[in-house]
């Protein structure tokens, strides 16, 4: 399998805090890679650098052979990388379906259209996507009144709308009940296998991580302290030390 995402020597500091310290790893195409680590380890920072929201101080990011180190979020998205955020971001004054329609309008470069009736554009395709993530019944509801778990699904549908080749999710199941979490991750991984999509995600729920990742990468204080198969990581002494220090592997946090 070829390398889809290649991260080399990424560094990022916020004042005195080193949020990312020489982070390097590869993600092969169609691989499902989980990044774990205690709070403040630098997971979100890493994701934001890949997604283009943050510019690394040093290092290089390549996606499908292209250098995207300095690309902004828009360019990263266009190159085929979809993204959901730790703090869910949807468009609160739109209906669930419209949220996805907007992504489709952007994909089809219709953002400057002053004439068409936006409500009707890509309606069926959007409906199919929200059906797929299990919120098809809420199509006409305002995102502003949705429960947190459902918002996570909306965001997922938005990210999937562009048919990305790599999906990057920062704590996709935070705020959901355990059964719901598993169901959602099952759904996403199944979809990804079917479409040949890679996944890069973080989670605090270790059951989810070990149940859905092909490979796990452990961050602590900005450094990669371990990486490998789920079983190997689970057995790693350093990892256990980190997690015992912060309350054990089952640390759950919203």
């Amino acid at each position, binding site marked *: 399998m070829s390398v889809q995402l290649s991260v080399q020597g990424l560094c990022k500091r916020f004042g005195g805090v080193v949020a990312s310290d020489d982070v390097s790893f590869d993600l092969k195409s169609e691989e499902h890679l989980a990044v774990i680590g205690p709070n403040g380890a630098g997971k979100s920072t890493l994701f934001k650098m890949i*997604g283009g*929201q943050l510019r690394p101080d040093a290092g290089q990011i390549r996606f499908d052979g292209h250098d995207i180190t300095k690309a*902004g*979020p*828009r360019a990263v*998205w*266009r190159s085929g990388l979809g*993204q959901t*955020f730790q*703090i869910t*971001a*949807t*468009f*609160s*004054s*739109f*209906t669930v379906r*419209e949220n996805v*329609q*907007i*992504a489709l*309008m*952007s*994909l089809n470069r*219709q*953002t*400057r*259209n*002053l*004439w*068409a*009736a*936006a*409500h009707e*554009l890509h309606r069926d395709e959007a409906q199919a996507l929200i059906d797929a993530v299990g919120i098809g019944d*809420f199509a006409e*509801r*305002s*995102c*502003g*009144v*949705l*429960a947190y778990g*459902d918002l996570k699904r909306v*965001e997922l549908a*938005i*990210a999937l*709308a*562009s048919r990305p080749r790599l999906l990057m999710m920062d704590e996709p199941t935070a705020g959901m009940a355990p059964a719901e979490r598993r169901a959602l991750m099952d759904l996403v991984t199944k979809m990804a296998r079917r479409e040949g999509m890679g996944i890069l995600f973080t989670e605090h729920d270790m059951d989810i991580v070990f149940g859905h990742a092909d490979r796990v990468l452990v961050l602590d204080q900005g450094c990669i302290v371990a990486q490998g198969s789920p079983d190997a990581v689970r057995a790693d002494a350093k990892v256990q030390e980190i997690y015992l220090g912060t309350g054990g592997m089952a640390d759950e946090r919203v």
Partner: protein
Amino acid sequence: MDFAFFILQFLNGLASASSLFIAACGLSIIFGVTRIVNFAHGSFYMLGAYFAVTLAPRLMESINPFLGFWGGILAAAMIVGLLGVLMEMLLLRRIYHVPELFQLLATFGVVLIVQDLVVLIWGPEDILGPRAPGLKGAVNILDQRFPEYELFLVAAGPLILGAIWLLFRKTRFGVLVRAATEDREMTDALGINQKLLFTGVLFLGASLAGLAGALQIPKEPANGFMDINMIAEAFVVTVIGGMGSVPGAFLAALLIGELQAFGILLFAKSTLVLAFLAMAVVLILRPQGLLGKPAVNTEHSEFASSIPLRPWPRWLVLAWLGAIVVFACLPFVVDSFTLKLAIEVMVFALFAMSLNLLIGLGGVISFGHAAWFGVGAYAAGLLAVHSHSPMLLALAAAPLAAGVAAALVGAFIARLSGVYLAMLTLAAAQLIYAIAFQWTGLTGGDDGLVGAWPDAWAKSRVVYFYLTLALAGGAVFALRHIAYAPFGYVLRAGRDGPARAEAIGINVAAARWVAFTIAGMAAGLAGGLYTFSKGSIDPTVLSIPTSVDVLAMTLLGGVHTVLGPVFGAAALHLLQDFAMPITDHWRLILGGGIIAMVLAFPEGLVGKLRSWFMPAEETP
């Protein structure tokens, strides 16, 4: 320029810089902690002067001149500080969590009220205060006379800066103020102390403004224009220095003070332009000001909403058609003056709608929207008066000129957000105002342009009514259409979640820039129609009060409604028409009305109506 004169002019600059700094630093401190841009700061300053000219002479007579004078100054500052506390407790406390724009408007309401109250209490005539005992003379500096009081002022600025520095370093209150200024979240974590802190800050800020006003009395009679004159300059200083930064305000005051002292030698007629030009240049190069902290990009605009725009059902379309038909029949039932009112209502409806494209859809706070209305009005007026162009040509030029101007300014503004953006729109509007005001050769200065009447075929009021109905009405519905088009969706998406929007390929800044241009064009068309309905045009159409009027109309209608601003414009304009002839206290009414609106129904008339009539969104 000989050396002695240079030194003297430098000292003059220092003295005005000191006054400016004392006046502006309170504004900066208040903003730093409460995040409220307090327009009423100018009112505090004016009240300081009025209290001082009232108290100082009486105290000078009853105690002794020296103690009486300085006692009067200090007492005035304290009283104003207490008024600041009063405002905090009665008003600000209720609006800390409403969008910035409502805060700006509410404090502007206070400005209007104080203006009328001052006339009611102290009468309309200026009041000249006493001069400072012991500082009445002049000292010789390099063979030139320099007033002792000015020398005192030169020292007073740095002294106050030092005092504030000590206060911020050595007292618990000061430490809290600094912490709150550095970190917004912190103030929320303060809990019960927060109220005390905010009240204390208002006392400090207001009493500094009062002190600045009181210190003015040996130089300037207390008068009813002090508030507006000062607030514009204080904004310039605060923004250039970096909002919330006291040392920044000091630097900026120095810059403006010296710029004006030497500027009058080079550009005797363009002093107004200089300050705003300096502000625009600084903001473009460093949006956060000289010593300010960059604005933290908030996750979403404060105007984000949770009410979707539903497509209109057929019955609603029919209802609107009916309403338009009824309106179009007006010429058959009413007299010509009423038609004129109706024309003005349509013009302001379009103006308000154009602003709502920015605020309601884009979440972009524009505090200088009068600029585009004015550019359109002037473009039409200049063509009609100077080159006698046909009216339709002039009307076509209005939106074009305004669109170009808005696109130029928008290119600098669109990437900013929040208060900085609002301040830059204000600066741009003031700059354009100053140009219209001071380029007398072209624009006629404050005389304006006279004689821009419609062509013969449209002279009849009825014809002009239908022309306005067609153009303004058409533009209003075009703006409405845009709200439902992909561009309108994209604009709103950028408002609700800029980070999310960027992550699906939407260029939020570019969308805002396009919106800025479209809004500018629509406002420009409104301005052009306005010119021909009045026959004349002058710089007041570009001034801050015009921007405030249109904001009030937009908010009164409701920012999250598509056509609400149309009703807001109608309501406010008609109210003004009926109230102005019967009362001398229109500003009191308008100011009180604005505050009541912000407090009671920020969702606006139509928003309120919708929440009554439409079923609420059910929550799962």
